[in-house]
């Protein structure tokens, strides 16, 4: 431990030089901008910047990449909250209550709690990364397909808090997502399913198309539809003050809980950032004294998930730095960047290049602080985006959405698919069918199926593997409890009342 601290101190000394700070600033600014834009994510940005950084020394380049990576987690919440158009899968859950807060004139508070939550989570998670990385990495290795399947089952239970008024419609949304997830190549056998002979569909329907389509495009269509229908206008949003005392009181525990949930889940390569944010949302709702507020602007629903997604981003770095295992697309690009400099992340990286690793970790702390300083004053400024005339706002959203879709594969088909999905999203909004379960279904369905079949393949058809392996069994038990508990609890309440 003292050795770690002294190494970290050296890392700080190296990171706190003016050139390195400048690179950190460049990285966080770019990352925030990238996070705001729909469809352009940190993975693509880092990949595009790789040639630019050929001439840089590795430490500066990695400081910048680290800034981009963390910055994207901050930026993603902005569009979620302001215009109900999450730019990344990490910010989908934030949109649920965040946008409602914005419509109630509390955009500034929502953005502020997101920024502070992100900072708290980023700092705490980086501390955890510093001291527990090797231990966590070895625990993560014990997760096999059976455990991952059980984890996806836990994630599925989170849908229960998203079903909204009508259970049937929520379940339909989930199955719709699952059905869309069927399209593409079956991982285990390489056979194509439901691709109808269209080569672009071989890879399945990209989740970003679904997210941007359902949320950004769907929202635009829906608002256009409502424009003529009823005269209810957007509430005057003159309240640009930040968080009230009550907001602070309601936020600080979700920040910490979100971090505790997000970091370990981020270490596991499973479902990206959706699972940590969903689990955080569900936990907040279950623990809240006012669960009926969720879905209508509960600040916990923003504070928790935003903390969770930043903590998960730090978690992803654990297997990357300790074992050289990328567990997300961005991590894979960072790995390439490492290799470009002749470094091989792996068990030996900490011992062969401690200067690089500790400077990187130190710059993550610094980047985090910079992001808070950048984003806090910006929150009320961003909130003023709500005052832009809707015509111009939605026009811009569609242009940016089309760029996001096109950038995935440079294919017109993706843009066409985007608009079709947007139409479906609009229809779902009109019919009061919740959108988030569909996204969950698309992400979790293929994952759960793949892990299930993989577990069976390894055990040669032995189903008991799901209950005999301790981690898998306990996760499945968790999932069952989560589903059953509210029913039991409610019946108990009913009995007590009568």
């Amino acid at each position, binding site marked *: 431990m003292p050795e770690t601290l002294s190494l970290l101190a050296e890392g700080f000394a190296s990171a706190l030089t003016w050139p390195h700070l400048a690179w950190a600033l460049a990285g966080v600014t770019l990352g925030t901008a990238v996070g705001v834009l729909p469809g352009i994510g940190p993975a693509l940005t*880092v*990949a*595009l910047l790789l*040639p630019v950084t050929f001439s840089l020394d590795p430490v500066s380049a990695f400081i910048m990449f680290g800034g981009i990576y963390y910055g994207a987690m901050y930026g993603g919440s902005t569009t979620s909250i302001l215009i109900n158009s999450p730019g990344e899968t990490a910010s989908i859950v934030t949109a649920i209550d965040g946008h409602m807060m914005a419509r109630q004139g509390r955009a500034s508070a929502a953005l502020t709690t997101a920024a502070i939550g992100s900072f708290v989570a980023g700092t705490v998670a980086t501390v955890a990364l510093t001291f527990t990385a090797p231990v966590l990495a070895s625990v*993560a*290795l014990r997760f*096999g397909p059976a455990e991952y399947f059980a984890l996806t089952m836990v994630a599925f239970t989170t849908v229960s808090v998203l079903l909204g008024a*009508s259970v049937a*419609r929520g*379940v339909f949304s989930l*199955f*719709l997502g699952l*059905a869309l997830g*069927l399209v593409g190549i079956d991982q*285990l*056998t*390489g056979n194509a399913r439901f691709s109808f002979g269209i*080569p*672009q569909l*071989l890879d399945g329907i990209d989740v970003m198309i679904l997210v941007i389509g359902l949320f950004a*495009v769907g929202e*635009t*269509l829906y608002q*256009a*539809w*409502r*424009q*003529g229908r009823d005269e209810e206008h957007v509430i005057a949003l003159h309240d640009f003050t930040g968080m009230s005392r009550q907001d602070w009181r309601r936020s600080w525990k979700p920040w910490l809980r979100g971090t505790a949930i997000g970091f370990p889940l981020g270490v596991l390569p499973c479902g990206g950032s959706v699972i940590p944010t969903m689990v955080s949302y569900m936990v907040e709702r279950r623990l809240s004294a006012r669960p009926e507020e969720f879905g209508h602007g509960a600040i916990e629903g923003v504070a928790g998930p935003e903390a969770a997604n930043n903590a998960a981003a730090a978690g992803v770095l654990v*297997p990357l730095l300790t074992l050289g295992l990328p*567990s997300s697309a961005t991590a*894979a*690009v960072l*790995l*390439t960047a490492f*290799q*470009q400099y002749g470094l*091989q992340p*792996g*068990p*030996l*990286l900490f011992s062969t290049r401690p200067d690089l690793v500790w400077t990187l970790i130190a710059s993550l702390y610094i980047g985090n602080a910079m992001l808070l300083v950048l984003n806090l004053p910006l929150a009320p400024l961003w909130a003023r985006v709500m005052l832009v005339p*809707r*015509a*111009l706002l939605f*026009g*811009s959203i*569609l*242009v940016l959405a*089309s760029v996001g879709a*096109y950038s995935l594969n*440079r*294919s017109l088909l993706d*843009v066409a698919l985007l*608009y079709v999905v947007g139409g479906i999203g609009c229809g779902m909004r009109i*019919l009061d069918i919740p959108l988030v379960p569909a996204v969950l279904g698309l992400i979790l369905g293929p994952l759960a199926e793949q892990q*299930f*079949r993989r577990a*069976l393949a390894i055990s*040669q*058809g032995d189903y008991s593997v799901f209950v005999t392996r301790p981690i898998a069994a306990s996760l499945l038990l968790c999932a069952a409890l989560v589903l059953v508990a509210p029913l039991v609890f409610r019946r108990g309440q009913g009995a007590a009342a009568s």
Partner: protein
Amino acid sequence: MRTVRLLLAALILASSSSAAAEPLQHLRLIAPAAPGGGWDQTARAMQAVLQAAGIVHTSSVENIPGAAGTIGLARFSSGERGNGDVVMLSGLIMLGAVVTHQSPVTLREVTPLARLTGEFEVIVVPSASPFRSLADLVTAFRANPESISWGGGSAGGTDQILAGLFADAVGVAPSRVNYIAYSGGGESLSAILGGQVSVGINGLAELAPQIDAGTVRALAVSSGIRLPGLDVPTLREQGVDVEIENWRSVVAPPGVSAAERERLEQIIAAMVASSQWRETMAKYRWSDRYLAGPAFARFMATEEARVQGILARLGSGETASSSGPVGRYPLFVLVGVVVSAAFSAGGMIRSRARAARMGAAEHGAGAGWRGAALVATAAGVDLLLLDRAGFVIASTALFWVTARAFDDAHPVRDAVCAAAMSVGAYVVFARLLQLSLPAGVLAGWL
């Protein structure tokens, strides 16, 4: 070897000087993989070397990921036909993917240029495994083939091919290989490290740090002779007659002229001869496997036959586990969609009826659809114009029509903002971030 290479380069230069195409300013490299994947790495390495050595003025890398390269292959062969300024990365994995995914486009349609690098495969076991040598593995494998689970990359890839060839060589029917496909090296590596699978197959570059650290035990390497700096016996040494390497190559689109093809071959030859390329290969631990011209075309044909043969016997598309819940899950999902749709529809009809009974007034039903229809029109216009007229024009139209749907009082303001937004987006994404948006008719001005 180097002499041969230089001679070849000189020959190409000499033979092409008579009917040479103009020197290439900008070379486009297409990596049929996501950023961070093997082909992407190679493409970016090539880009760096080409620019550092001044072989081309500028170059760019485009990613077309999906389906182990077959999506990139399909788009390359149809969309880049006749273009002499673009090349695509390819390799053994693509040969396998073409078979496994039953791709309508094969590598026979593209113009082979050269094989560049090779990477050998290593068979490893977790450090806690009971198999201390390849002989142990072979014994257990022969006794009960299905009990050994093999973890490696995607179905039809080099890892699975090696597993099949291995089985064949030790007398086990390839169809009995219990191969577990993972998407990408990271996933399969964590499966090996965690002891989730009995045996792992992966490329040397990925496994080298783990072998050095002792977290996995290497049983055999797939080269013909031992590799320098790696204390692992070959398969052949240990009595398994298999040799395979994961080679990567570059290909040109179909329909390029002879002059253009020679120009591309010259560029590749010059790159391979440069010192920067040698440094790059050492850095990534790739082997220099440069082979161009008709010899390469012959090599591709032989490899294609070998891959087709072994994948057929592996039951490409059928693993030991596939009889089982494959068909049940899609069925479950489709039934679920129908059933939940029925329930939802029922609920909606009931609530609609209840509202009607309570006399709720219907709002101006037509007005809402006008707005939505306008936005839909905007989308349609965007799709029509995007490829034909370019991004800027299409987005201006998209923006303007959408704005009209919300507020038709300020057409001029909307038009100005539309143009500004579109041009701004184009400059930021296509020029600054190099994201490649269609320039269309305005290509000259932008």
